[in-house]
């Protein structure tokens, strides 16, 4: 029955450790830095539940802390809650979950100067591996914990754990060495007198001593009995109801073969004491020892009891686990709700982000269109300026050509006159002055032709004036319908265009043909103004081609007011040009 006693010991050790762990946790961890009041409050409540073994209530609180706390800002509380949860899972036998919790602590350990959390982490890890039969891993973590600079009592406790692992590995010698050391050196400075203040220490000492006894027992060392009896004596003196059954169970096991009656006696006592505190493990061991040490009716009785008990224990464990599952489930629902809320929040944030993106995009679109508009304005201005410059240049060329055409002869005459005649002569002087005056007045009229055109109420007069300049004794110019509509309703640009176009046509006709009669008809046709020039000049077919070339400029002008220029090449005896533009 080596195994059963071993398990018994382990369980008792476990509970004691749990008790001590909770004592450790008594000092609230959040004293360091904690900015979140809620996390702090929950930690206080959670730890108090934990310390009172109320894991059902502690569990959701720790979960909540983990959900609420900021792992960086509230690191202490966060890690504390994780360790709390790891322990709770461990107590419930859920070593996988426990490990899952404790793994989350690992990245935080480097931030703690004190080794307390590291020690817990390694300790819990070691125990998880121990319980899942991964003894080497368990030893690895226990050793890690052992090498931490911690308070000595923690070192002794880890040594105790290592001893238990060795026991499980059946390395009883090694285990015995450890337990000897623990029970001797570990309590060298401790007061082992029976006192309320150090009762817990004494109880732990008893557990460890008992472990040493177990080692001796397994090594067939006779010291085992002494130790068992010593432990029993202390426990009896300390009235340790919780663990006294363990001593009886150990003694029962010790006498099982050599003295079955004594073994049965201890087993009965142990069963009785274990029943008082409902220590099901000891109850189980004691019942099993009873079943082995008794005979006949008693054997039958205890065997039945043992079977019934095992069943009930299983049911109880199952129930306990189920209850715990309920809590976990309820918490899961909470968590799901939280997740839902979080999702909503995230969605909201996403929406905000989207809107930000949208406005960002619209900003980009706006600035691009703004740039485009700017560029367009710049381009149009530049183009307009270029066109204007071109127009000015063309105009200058035209004027200089005209000056050349009209004044060349006069200037040449005047120059040769001045060279060849004696200007001292009054008659010559007068003639020369007349020549100069002619040049001046011609220049002036060219200048006037190109000066600004009045577009006010005097426009019609200005137009007539211009036309009349082309009339002479040889050429009669008839004007028809010039006043048949109101010029004031026609736009300035259109008026200027009409003026320039007529001027250009008359100019060209004057140089091109020998007409004696010309007629200009102005007509208003619905929404158009039609202006028609007709003369009786000799018609030359090439005239139109030349004119068309010369009037290129005119045509462009008409186009700018959405008008059309038309040469009537069909008429037989006359030359006709007409243009039309909308009002």
């Amino acid at each position, binding site marked *: 029955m080596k195994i059963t006693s071993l398990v018994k010991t382990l369980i008792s050790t476990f509970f004691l450790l749990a008790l001590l762990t909770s004592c450790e946790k008594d000092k609230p961890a959040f004293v360091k830095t904690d900015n979140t009041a809620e996390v702090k409050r929950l930690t206080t409540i959670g730890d108090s539940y934990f310390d009172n073994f109320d894991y059902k209530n502690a569990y959701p609180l720790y979960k909540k802390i983990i959900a609420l706390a900021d792992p960086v800002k509230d690191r202490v509380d966060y890690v504390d809650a994780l360790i709390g949860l790891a322990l709770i899972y461990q107590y419930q036998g859920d070593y996988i979950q426990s490990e899952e919790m404790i793994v989350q602590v690992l990245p935080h350990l480097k931030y703690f100067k004190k080794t307390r959390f590291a020690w817990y982490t390694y300790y819990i890890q070691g125990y998880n591996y121990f319980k899942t039969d991964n003894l080497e891993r368990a030893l690895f973590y226990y050793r890690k914990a052992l090498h931490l600079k911690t308070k000595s009592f923690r070192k002794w406790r880890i040594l105790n754990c290592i001893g238990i692992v060795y026991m499980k590995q059946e390395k009883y010698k090694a285990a015995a060495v450890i337990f000897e050391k623990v029970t001797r050196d570990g309590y060298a400075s401790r007061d082992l007198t029976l006192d309320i203040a150090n009762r817990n220490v004494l109880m732990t000492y008893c557990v460890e001593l008992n472990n040493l006894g177990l080692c001796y027992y397994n090594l067939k060392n006779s010291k085992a009995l002494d130790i068992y009896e010593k432990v029993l004596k202390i426990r009896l003196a300390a009235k340790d109801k919780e663990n006294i059954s363990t001593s009886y169970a150990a003694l029962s096991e010790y006498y099982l073969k050599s003295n079955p009656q004594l073994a049965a006696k201890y087993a009965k006592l142990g069963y009785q004491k274990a029943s008082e505190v409902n220590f099901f493990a000891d109850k189980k061991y004691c019942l099993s020892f009873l079943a082995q040490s008794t005979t006949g009716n008693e054997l039958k009785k205890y065997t039945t009891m043992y079977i019934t008990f095992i069943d009930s224990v299983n049911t109880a464990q199952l129930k306990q686990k189920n209850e715990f599952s309920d809590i976990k489930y309820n918490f899961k629902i909470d968590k799901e709700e939280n997740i839902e809320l979080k999702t909503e929040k995230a969605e909201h944030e996403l929406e905000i982000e989207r809107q930000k993106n949208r406005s960002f995009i619209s900003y980009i679109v706006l600035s691009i269109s703004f740039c485009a508009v700017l560029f367009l304005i710049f381009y149009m201005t530049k183009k307009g300026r270029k066109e204007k410059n071109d127009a000015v240049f063309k105009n200058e060329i035209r004027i200089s050509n005209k000056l050349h055409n009209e004044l060349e002869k006069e200037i040449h005459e005047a120059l040769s006159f001045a060279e060849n005649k004696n200007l001292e002569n009054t008659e010559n002087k007068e003639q020369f*002055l007349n020549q100069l*005056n002619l040049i001046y007045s011609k220049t002036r009229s060219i200048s006037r032709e190109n000066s600004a055109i009045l577009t006010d109420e*005097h426009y019609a*007069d*200005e137009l*007539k*004036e211009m*036309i*009349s300049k082309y*009339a*002479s*004794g040889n*050429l*009669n*110019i*008839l*004007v*028809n*319908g*010039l*006043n*048949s509509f109101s010029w004031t309703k026609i736009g300035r640009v259109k008026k200027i265009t009409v003026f320039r176009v007529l001027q250009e046509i008359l100019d060209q006709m004057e140089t091109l043909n020998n007409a*004696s*009669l010309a*007629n200009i*008809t102005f007509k208003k046709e619905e929404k158009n103004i039609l202006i*028609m020039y*007709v003369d*009786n000049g000799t018609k030359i077919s090439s005239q139109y081609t030349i004119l068309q070339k010369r009037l290129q400029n005119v045509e462009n002008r008409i186009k700018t007011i959405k008008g059309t220029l038309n040469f009537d090449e069909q*008429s*037989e*005896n*006359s030359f*006709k040009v007409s243009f039309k533009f909308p009002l």
Partner: protein
Amino acid sequence: MFKKVLVAEDLDSISIAVVQVLEELQVPVIHHVKYCDEGLLKVKKALADNEPYDLMITDLSFKSDHRKVDLHSGDELIGAINKVQPKIKKIVFSIEDKSYRIKTLFNELGINAYVTKGRNSIVELRNAIESTFKNEEKILSSDLSFNFNDKALIEIESYDISILKLLSQGYILESISKEFKDLAITPNGTSSIEKRINKLKIYFKANNNVHLIAIAKDFGLV
């Protein structure tokens, strides 16, 4: 000769010449102003003093300078003076030679003479002043007279078009007169219509009525 003359001219070289002409004509009081507003004030003051001007000689264009003025041109000055002293004699002495503008000055502002600045302008001005003093009407300097009586530009009216149309339809003089009477178009007497047809023949350089209609047809007038 005139007793009191106002000269409105912004270029002193010209005003000196004008004043010289007036002095030669032995005008006793000669006032000279460079701004139109000042001219109007002088006229008003003279009226108030009961010593009004007999004659005003003015330019048309005045260069604008730093002074803020109400009257910007000779046209405006004449218009303003016409309101206070309509009977004053007015001679315009300007570079302007556009016949329609000059006609407007005569017809609408009632100026007495128009003299263009030119090579012979002093003589022309002198003649104009003398002619004005003799109450002659519509005096033009000699270089402008052609323009003023210019008939080269002939405005064909709808009346003429109507005559041409009826002629082209074979109407004789009497029928046209009757038609005009029916349509209440005046003048509709045969003699005035005949005169008009003769005028049209001259305008169109036509030898006879048939020729006239042919030309009018060619020109698309009928």
